[in-house]
């Protein structure tokens, strides 16, 4: 697949060079400024493919600075103090104890005409982990990703991690190997991976006893 992509890029580059060269010849023949016409042709050929690159990076940066982060609203000790004896009675629903990854039973829901998707992971009788993915706009491929540790009895968030990824959309996921515009791929904001790991380490404390 990679070879096909590189060949396609090579062919497009050759076509672009041919278009620019033809434009220069045309401009010279008709007494126009060749460098101006060549620049315009190169600009058009570039933007036919890469028009959304700069807007995606700019909008991604904006959302990362404005909304991304990891917040703990209640620590385990605070929650235990408010709910004495409850944690000791919780049993983890993990289907794969001792495995490489946790495997919670889950449900999902789709909203906003397919632009928003929520996976509801059932951690135990009391807690869910929500994984919400949402397209922030239809113009550029940016997904808002949110993980929430949710107290089902009190209907409140215990912790939240928000991140943004680019290069794909919730509604039009293409793969494998992912979207064709691979240069737009960015799975998270700067420092987002570390925050995701911290969120994982935090929420797993609430899983309860393994069966």
């Amino acid at each position, binding site marked *: 697949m990679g070879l096909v992509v590189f060949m396609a890029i090579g062919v497009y580059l050759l076509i672009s060079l041919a278009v620019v060269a033809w434009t220069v010849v045309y401009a010279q023949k008709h007494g126009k400024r060749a460098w101006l016409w060549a620049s315009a042709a190169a600009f058009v050929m570039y933007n036919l493919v890469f028009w959304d690159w700069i807007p995606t990076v700019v909008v991604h940066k904006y959302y990362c600075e404005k909304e991304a982060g990891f917040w703990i609203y209640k620590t385990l000790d605070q929650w235990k103090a408010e709910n004495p004896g409850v944690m000791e009675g919780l049993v983890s629903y993990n289907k*794969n104890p001792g*495995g*490489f*990854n946790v*495997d919670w039973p889950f449900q*999902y829901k789709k909203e906003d005409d397919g632009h928003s998707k929520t996976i509801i992971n059932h951690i135990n009788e009391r807690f869910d982990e929500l994984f919400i993915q949402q397209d922030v706009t239809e113009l550029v491929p940016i997904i808002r990703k949110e993980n929430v540790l949710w107290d089902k009895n009190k209907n409140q968030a215990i912790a939240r991690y928000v991140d943004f990824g680019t290069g794909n959309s919730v509604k039009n996921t293409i793969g*494998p190997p*992912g979207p064709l515009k691979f240069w737009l791929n960015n*799975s998270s904001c700067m420092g987002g991976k570390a925050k995701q790991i911290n969120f*994982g380490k935090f929420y797993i404390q609430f899983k309860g006893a393994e069966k």
Partner: protein
Amino acid sequence: MSMIQDLFQQAQLAEAAYADFSNPNVSTANALQDANNGGSFSEAQAATFVADWSVVSHQPDTLNGFSATVFRIDKSLN
């Protein structure tokens, strides 16, 4: 198992191998459906996959682009 079922299993395993399972606290279902992290499974695909398979080990992308995942089947598919 028929050839079509066999090919289906191989195809879904190949597709699942693109997901990022490097964080042990991210559930398999989340990883399979994380659109910006190589997860391209639909909800129904993920549910079916998780019911039958689990991750045994995962090597995330190395500097030269290699990655690998070992899956274990949790029940007979015959």
